[in-house]
């Protein structure tokens, strides 16, 4: 009998090869690796060996999560040719449970962006309508799930990079609590904000992946062991922050309809997160500051691109000058400036203080409500090339950034359609480490709502 898993994986790869030409969600398909793994799994079936929790499940991985022996570029030329000497913790955990890693997906360069347009390897198109962006930065992962290439994919979320593309592509995308999933092997962007999370077509699959990847990893000191409780209360109080209603009409009406369809035991109240307006500003100090330091290691000396110069400094200029794209350079400069002596107190330190205030907004809110709900993004997917002004692009993340600043879990689930059938995302947030409760609630909401 021919191996069932091998057949399934070969089919999955065939479909990507044929149909991803139009989408460009994958940067590389790990055909050899995936088939080999599938054969091992078939062998397991034959021998009646114990099967992992994700047995034979094809998974796509964002290009900033490293896999031993495979390339990882973070969508950047500077990591051209880099092959990772080690596995990310999440990759280990997925493979231990017999998932099959299919390939790596496109992203905004170093996850700096909300459209996947800044990738050095070309744009990814939205499977719902190829004229439009899939969102970003995990646009490749979102599109790979939306196009039906893979049932699940991993992304990373620093300011909305999972939830916003999930929203644009009409799939589910979950950013766990900061510390819930090990970051070991995720190429760092904003270390105090980054979190790995799954994309899937439904909340049940999100839960399945989360259960495998979550948990303390001693290689990541910021990771935390906790037992998510997948249970709801009899009455669930949902707060809608009045600050989150400043969005496009279509988005507003889809969110409103969703709220009307919430399960009967969900009660909705209006709340305030008064410092929301500072979130984007705070984020664009902290994230680039950390990024400017995190990206300094790409100097051409040990791996990736290297252009020799007349001396050491010239070599740095040439390597980094040609290896990084404009948006990366912009953020490195922003961050370098904010951390410079004489400016540190006014920018980085002040931003950290405001971050604490924003966190407190959430602490206060979660004393009154169990969930905070609202739109994931103020808009639906925009056309490729439509937004050229960096500041307008930064404002894409206005509703998603606060969860990263506060370290709380947040999910985006599809809740309706706007112009040209483009999806709208509904964001649900919970208190830190209430990930289980959040996913349980999201599943109930997913069941309860229907839209055209």
């Amino acid at each position, binding site marked *: 009998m021919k191996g069932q898993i091998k057949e399934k994986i070969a089919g999955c790869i065939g479909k990507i090869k044929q149909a991803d030409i139009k989408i460009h969600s994958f940067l590389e398909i790990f055909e050899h690796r995936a088939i080999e793994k599938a054969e091992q799994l078939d062998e397991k079936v034959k021998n009646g060996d114990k099967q992992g929790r994700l047995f034979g499940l094809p998974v796509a991985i964002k290009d*900033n*999560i*490293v896999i031993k022996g495979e390339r*990882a570029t*973070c969508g950047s030329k500077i*990591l051209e040719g*880099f092959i*990772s*000497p*080690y596995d*990310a913790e999440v990759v280990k955990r997925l493979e231990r449970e017999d998932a099959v890693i299919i390939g790596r997906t496109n992203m905004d360069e170093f996850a700096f962006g909300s459209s996947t347009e800044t990738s050095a390897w070309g744009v990814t198109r939205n499977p719902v309508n190829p004229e439009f962006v899939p969102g970003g930065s995990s646009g490749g992962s979102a599109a790979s799930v939306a196009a039906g290439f893979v049932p699940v994919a991993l992304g990373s979320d620093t300011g909305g990079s999972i939830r916003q593309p999930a929203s644009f592509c009409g799939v589910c995308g979950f950013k766990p609590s900061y510390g819930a999933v090990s*970051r*070991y*092997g*995720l*190429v*760092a962007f904003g*270390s*105090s904000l980054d979190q790995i999370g799954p994309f899937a077509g439904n909340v049940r699959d999100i839960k399945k992946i989360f259960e495998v990847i979550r948990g303390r990893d*001693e*290689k*990541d*000191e*910021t990771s935390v062991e906790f037992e998510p409780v997948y249970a709801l209360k009899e009455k669930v109080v949902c707060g809608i922050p009045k600050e989150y209603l400043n969005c496009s009409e279509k988005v507003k009406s889809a969110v409103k309809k969703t709220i009307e369809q919430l399960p009967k035991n969900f009660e909705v109240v209006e709340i305030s997160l008064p410092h929301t307006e500072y979130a984007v500003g705070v984020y664009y100090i902290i994230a680039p*500051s*950390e990024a*400017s*330091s995190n990206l*300094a*290691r*790409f*100097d051409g*000396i*040990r*791996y990736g691109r290297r252009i020799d110069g007349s001396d*050491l400094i010239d070599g*740095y200029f040439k390597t980094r000058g040609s290896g990084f794209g404009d948006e990366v350079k912009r953020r490195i400069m922003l961050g*370098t400036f904010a*951390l*410079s*002596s004489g400016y*540190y107190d006014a920018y*980085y330190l002040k931003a950290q203080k405001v971050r604490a205030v924003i966190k407190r907004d959430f602490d206060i809110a979660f004393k009154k409500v169990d969930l905070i709900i609202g739109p994931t993004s103020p808009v639906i997917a925009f056309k490729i090339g439509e937004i050229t002004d960096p500041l307008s692009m930064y404002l894409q993340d206005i509703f998603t950034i606060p969860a990263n600043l506060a370290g709380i879990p947040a999910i985006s689930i599809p809740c309706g359609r706007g112009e040209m059938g483009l999806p709208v995302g509904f964001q649900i947030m919970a208190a830190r480490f209430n990930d289980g409760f959040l996913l349980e609630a999201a599943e109930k909401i997913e069941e309860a709502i229907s839209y055209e």
Partner: protein
Amino acid sequence: MSDFIPTIGLEVHVQLKTKSKMFCSCSTDFGAAPNTNICPVCTGQPGVLPAKNKRAIELAVRAGLVLNCRIEKYSVFARKNYFYPDLPKAYQISQYELPITRDGFVKLSGKKIGIIRAHLEEDAGKLLHYIGSVPVDGSLVDLNRCGVPLLEIVSYPDIDSPETAFEYLKTLRRLLRYAEISDCDMEKGSLRCDCNVSVRRSVDEPLGVKTEIKNMNSFREVREAIAYEIERQKKVLSDGGKIYQETRLWNGRKGVTVEMRRKEEAADYRYFPEPDLTPIFIDEKIIEEQRKLIPKLPAERKEKLFEMGLSEYQVDVLVEERKLCDYFIAASENSNPKEVANLIITNLLGEMNKKRLDIEEVKLNPLFVGELADLKASGKISAQVVKRIFPQMFEKNIPPSQLLKNLNIVSDEGKLEKLVWEGISENSSAWEDYKMGKEKASGRIIGWVMKKTRGSSDPATVKKILERLKDEKDFDN
């Protein structure tokens, strides 16, 4: 040249005695082949994260106690950002605003040197420009040292002379070695020292502009470099010149300091708290555990040794190394301490030197040394006998009594005198010559006695007897 007052502060980096690196599990062994003690974490591969070495933190706490510092209950790591090929992450994980210990002092003879802070950080790698004596094309990078745990100890500018700096370093090294915090071996790079030096005309003036000197390879060089720099600054100022805040490199071969970079060119390190590491929390339990592990320190031991009647030289040698001092204390427990000190300093250290052994590797039971000291002190054996039997004691860990028995050492003077008389009658012409004042003639009689006793008599004792007999004879005449 009018008089100037120097002000000196030292920044000392010591390698903490841990098996593994500060943030990964790589070995800290010295002398491994280049780039063999490395892993994704310490080579700064994309996506890696650091995880704190608990042992290094404990040693930092112990150091804080030894340096009389306040141990901070809460401290954090920070990133010090700069580009250099020996720094793979392009930032060094260090401590900045909140170090683990601060506000301490080191006591020297007659004065105290304040400690501003002692903080944890990781070492960088090493650039090689030569293989042997052959220059390489470009530079080679060895990352073995990268991530090795260091403690940076920053003194107040309380030091006023090159000699005091020298004494401070020696005292510091002794303390850190006693408490087994660091090997403090400059040759192996486990201790490095940078000096900040300035001069001013009087104590009423504000401090002068300081220069930082680096690249000294021994305490002696530190003393020389500071002395040179003080003289240089004095001369510049006396000639109406100006001192610039700059980093200067010591050139040991030429004995001068040379400008490396001015402050205007100095990097802005853009310190910020390391987001990948959780803060360090130190509770009373950790502090107490470490306090218990600190042995009696040199100052206290010195006092005790002086009380035992040892000379200043003996005390200095014995106190320098804790294990040696422990050995002395064990050996002198029931024996003559001055004689034990002599034996250890002359014979034991001599044998250790010959065999290139550390005190930890010495097998000889210290009680045997005590026994030997008493034999010597009571005059039962001479220095020559000690010299003869010590190597065997040392090598085989045999008590001196047994060796003396084996050798049939004739230490009984009455028995020896009889033999000497026999020697005289067998060599009467030599005896006559000797009596006439030919010192050399005694050799034949001594040789005869030695031969007769098959080398087990002590020639010095024989000589002594011979001299006595000659004097008695003189008197008879």
